């Protein structure tokens, strides 16, 4: 399989890229810092026993001008791409985001506007080659307006919405869209936070995401337990949501 990943340098993207490399996939890594990409590429090549082919392309979600060209460059580097994966994203606690409007604006831009712009370019290229998979990391935080993840959750709610519409509109034309909704996963992103019950590990998430890509599953809650947790949270009445801390 040929995979392009935006966000493979850290966290769940790193775990995903490793599992893909170890099974012999060809990878295009997209990211904002070429030195970091180079270090990750070396890691992946060694882990694959020298089998995996890894290409690098610069793409910065803070810089809209890099996005469409990076998609072009990725397709040009390997010819055809079976799946484009986006794990890149920003997180901020609700306190930090409320205290700093510039940070809030940046997070909304990176996680929503610019991610959509990147996905639009990928969508066009995937459709142009006759189809493929677009797999994007949203979050359970986008499922319900909740106290601790209001602004971050808004960016992910918008993203989930967009991804669902792609699935409705383009599935018939061969574009498989996968919206990944991780629950709490122990990565650098969440390192300062206290893990709730059912916190996941990047390796477990990566495994389930590769499986979802193989199957073309449109929505993936991971760890799986979070499908249940969110089913309950989505149904809680507002007067309860106003009282509880989550």
């Amino acid at each position, binding site marked *: 399989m040929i995979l392009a990943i935006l966000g493979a340098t850290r966290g769940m993207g790193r775990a995903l890229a490793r599992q893909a490399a170890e099974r012999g996939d060809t990878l295009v890594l997209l990211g904002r810092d070429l030195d970091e990409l180079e270090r990750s590429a070396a890691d992946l090549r*060694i882990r694959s026993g020298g089998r995996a082919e890894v290409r690098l392309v610069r793409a910065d979600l803070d810089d809209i001008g890099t996005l469409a060209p990076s998609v072009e460059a990725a397709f040009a580097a390997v010819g055809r791409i079976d799946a484009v994966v986006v794990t890149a994203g920003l997180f901020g606690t609700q306190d930090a985001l409320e205290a700093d409007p510039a940070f809030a604006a940046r997070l909304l831009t990176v996680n929503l506007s610019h991610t959509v712009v990147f996905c639009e370019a990928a969508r066009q290229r995937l459709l142009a080659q006759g189809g493929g998979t677009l797999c994007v990391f949203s979050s359970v935080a986008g499922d319900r307006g909740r106290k601790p993840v209001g602004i971050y959750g808004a960016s992910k709610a918008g993203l989930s919405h967009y991804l669902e519409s792609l699935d409705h509109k383009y599935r018939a034309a061969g574009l498989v869209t996968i919206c990944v909704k991780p629950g709490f996963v122990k990565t650098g992103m969440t390192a300062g936070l206290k893990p709730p019950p059912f916190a996941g590990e990047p390796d477990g998430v990566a495994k389930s995401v590769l499986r979802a890509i193989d199957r073309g599953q449109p929505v993936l809650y991971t760890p799986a337990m979070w499908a249940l947790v969110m089913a309950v949270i989505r149904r809680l009445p507002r007067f309860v949501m106003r009282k509880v801390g989550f």
Partner: protein
Amino acid sequence: MNRTAAPAEPSKKAPEGTLSGWGRIPLPGSERFGEDLEGLSASADLCRGLGRSYGDSSLPARPTDRVVNTVLADRLLSFDPASGRVRAEAGFSVRELYRVFLKQGWFTPVTPGTSFVTLGGMVASDVHGKNHHSAGTIGRHITALRVRVADGRVIDCSPQQEPELFWGTIGGMGLTGHVLEVELQLEAVPSPWILQESERIPNIDTFLERLEATAHDWPMTVGWIDCVTQGPSLGRGLLMCGRWARPEEAPKAFPRQLPRLKLPFVLPDFVLGPLSVRAFNTAFYWKHIPQKKRGIVHPETYFYPLDAILDWNKAYGKRGFTQYQAVLPKDNARRSARAFLELLTREGGASFLCVIKDCGPEGSGLLSFPRPGVSVALDIKMTDRTQHLIDALNAFVIAEGGRIYLTKDQLTRPEDLRRMEPRLDRFTALRRKWDPQLRIRSAQSVRLLGDPPLPETTP
């Protein structure tokens, strides 16, 4: 570039959380995780890896100290399949090394008894394995380090380049600088399986004889001692010798990864009480029915028997435990090993696990633990008497001219360490050369090496 999402500066107030080593004796403090070890280390007071050191060596000296956990910095950076030389970030673990490289025909030339250790932790403790008598410590196989020293510089060092910093960092318990990258010479293995021969040993004298005799034929040897039984059978146990199996001896299949269990909660205190320790020791000894056994064993079972239960350290109950490991010099090894066990039984230090191993020549690490002689290691549950027991064992070790292993220590007194460590002054001088204020420090270095207080404000 602004790389952090929420640049929450650590507050001046003591954090609510605690950190602990493998012995589960907590101290107030918190740790920062991140892939960008190079960036995080710039303002760190201490680095830690997987927290498999038993005592306080990976814990902060003060609750507000900045401790960086390296486990997310785990990338392989280069590997030469012709020579087996590998370079990785300091948080890369032996668990991953096993998974990635054994199938490629390579393994670490030295491994401790758990795979849940990082390269940085292995370097800082200058770890040894069952092959110490033939392979030395890990330091012998480290070819280069990249170290962030206290003034912020990043120094590449090796036996040729900045050798003093290099050999001080090997076995330096994280106190000379933060290890960012490690270059290691792997060992080519003929197959991924181990050929093991195990043998029942009736008493301590025979044990030392057999350890010495088998060392010539076997690259790996280790003994397990029943340290409950007294009298003529004092020090009975099992001796396990091993080597990598040759291809024609080994199964064709690659060893499957073994399942791992998790202890759901901290076990109540009676579970590892004196009665069960006795029962365990007796059962383990007699389970080995033939006097000698030989066969192929799974490499994980051989190297990492305890890793089968992820958090077995919870078995020691709420107060936690410590490990005592000391090496007794070769000249008197036989007499002093016996005397050590006698002292241990007299002091009631019955232990679930007591491991004995003969050590080869001393490594070049400035504070490296092993030296020619016999090493004894035992887990000790924390009770009101534990401090007394450790003091008594230390008094004995000092009298015999031996020394303790810092990565296991929780309770040794500074004056006792000084008596067993003539190398301390050289080590402190080296630290001061790179870090005049001794800013890089741990709870252990304050407790044991007497680091002077720092001014409250750090930049």
